[in-house]
């Protein structure tokens, strides 16, 4: 039976890897210590994310994410949860930056391990969905920058608009 797949760009948006992350999102867990926490919200579509980070030294030891939203935002959050543990603050930000640039059509720098993120490469052909893919990453950036500013930031949530 026809499974609805006859459109190359659509297939490239919803790759099996992406659907797999959506169906079994990584990072749904409870951390034994939370150093950073932040909410993200995409007001255009109502997608919401909560993110908690456990730090050790200057590195992300573990991440918990819970994203309620579309395939793209959930998959992207799941990939983030899979990729991040063990990365230094700088590596995490470099990754976020590379992913942002990917969404605007620029390939990631050679040598950077982007894990499953390349499965989201097809999003760049759907500009209105780029915000979905970025929700988790913008939330991460804000969380890390807030930590830098040592918690005196009043704004505890990220919106993508």
């Amino acid at each position, binding site marked *: *039976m*026809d*499974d*609805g*797949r006859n*459109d190359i*760009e*659509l297939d490239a*948006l*919803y790759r099996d890897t992406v*659907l797999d992350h959506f169906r079994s999102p990584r990072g749904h867990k409870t951390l034994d210590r939370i150093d950073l926490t932040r909410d993200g919200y995409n*007001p*255009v*579509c*109502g*997608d*919401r994310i909560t993110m908690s980070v456990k730090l050790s030294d200057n590195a992300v030891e573990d991440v918990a994410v819970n994203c*309620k*939203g*579309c*395939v*793209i935002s959930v998959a992207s959050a799941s990939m983030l949860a899979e990729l991040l543990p063990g990365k230094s603050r700088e590596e995490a930000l470099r990754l976020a930056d590379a992913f942002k640039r990917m969404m605007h059509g620029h390939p990631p720098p050679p040598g950077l391990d982007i894990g499953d993120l390349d499965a989201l490469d097809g999003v760049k052909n*759907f500009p209105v*969905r780029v915000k*979905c893919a970025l929700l988790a990453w913008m939330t991460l950036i804000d969380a890390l920058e807030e930590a830098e500013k040592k918690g005196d930031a009043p704004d505890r949530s990220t919106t993508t608009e």
Partner: protein
Amino acid sequence: MSTTTTVPVRTATPIPPKREIASTREDFPILKRMIHGSPIVYLDSAATTQKPEAVINALVDYYHQTNANVHRGLYALAAQATDKYEGARAKVAKFIGAAETEEIVFTRNTTESINLVAQSWGSRNLKSGDEILVSEMEHHSNLVPWFLLAKRTGAVVRHIPILDDGTLDLSKWNERFTNRARLVALTHVSNVLGTINPIAEIAERVHKHGALLLVDGAQGVPHMPVNVATLGADFVAFSAHKMLGPTGVGVLWGRRELLESMDPFLGGGDMIRTVSMTDATWNDSPWKFEAGTPNIADVIGFGAAIDYLESIGMNEVRRHEIELTEYALEKMHAVDELEIHGPADSLVRAGVISFNHSDIHPHDLSTYLDRKGVAIRAGHHCAQPLMERLGQNATARASFYIYNNREDIDTLIDALQSAGRFFGRR
């Protein structure tokens, strides 16, 4: 290009021939467009409607033949532009059964019409502790102006909740409508649920206590016969772009004595009678509320939209929507994965169907459908409190107008089923 010898007081617009609703599609050039290789199936008319060639031509003709600023010029073009602009006001008045042409104020959109009342009526008439009653199904445009007004005046916004079937919970009326209530601001038709609210019945309750009723007519006036003489409202707001007209035109209808008693809205040219270096006096309404150069061309284009709708007849528009809605509801109920919001009876609902798919987020659904040429909306539909009530972050929404037909709905259903297979694949 013709020679003008006299300036007619009122430009006689030729009445277009009666249109059969089944033949209207060909009047809409955009419907011939292909989207991603498929013919477009436009199911987002609740957001904005497409425009018939007659409306587009009215704009072109205006800029080709008559363009000039209105109300002040003495030369032929200016007089003709003024006649056409004021002629469109008369058409709107007649279309909604207003007692007088002067009860029609042109704004940018429904949103501005509601803000106008909030500022010009509200700031003058509300005191701290007074109450404004809205409903849980309101569009942001019929909520935020009242929040802003409440902040300025100390008034309080209360709301009528809705029942699970998507209708107002009028059993809460007595609890929510206290003797401090001064205004009820209610949508005629929900842009999410399709619910048609019982305006006449509510108007009676409101007026019994000397309060006023503002009706958000954005989804009502375009879709069914609305006669303000019998509706029971004191103000009605609606948008041209949701009823075949150009973007950039809204209407506020208000009872004459109310409009006359209200403060001006924005200050500037055209809304004044006299201006000195320290003060000003106001023009009569509706011009008191129309500051600066109005959106002349689009108001005239809106007049052409009304001619077009009248050539079909609003009863026919409504009949067609009931028929399509019934057909769509039946087909959609047959798709197991769909949860459909709003009233089940198509006689008390308009051609707006919001739904959720058990396995597919509205965004993914909308992206998928778009690839098949089907344009639906996904999101909160500017009704976040209602989303909260429905327990959804977002819904998908299909909405219909005169140019939609059963084949559009068949295509929608096919695409929904194909989406199920696409996202359900392992």
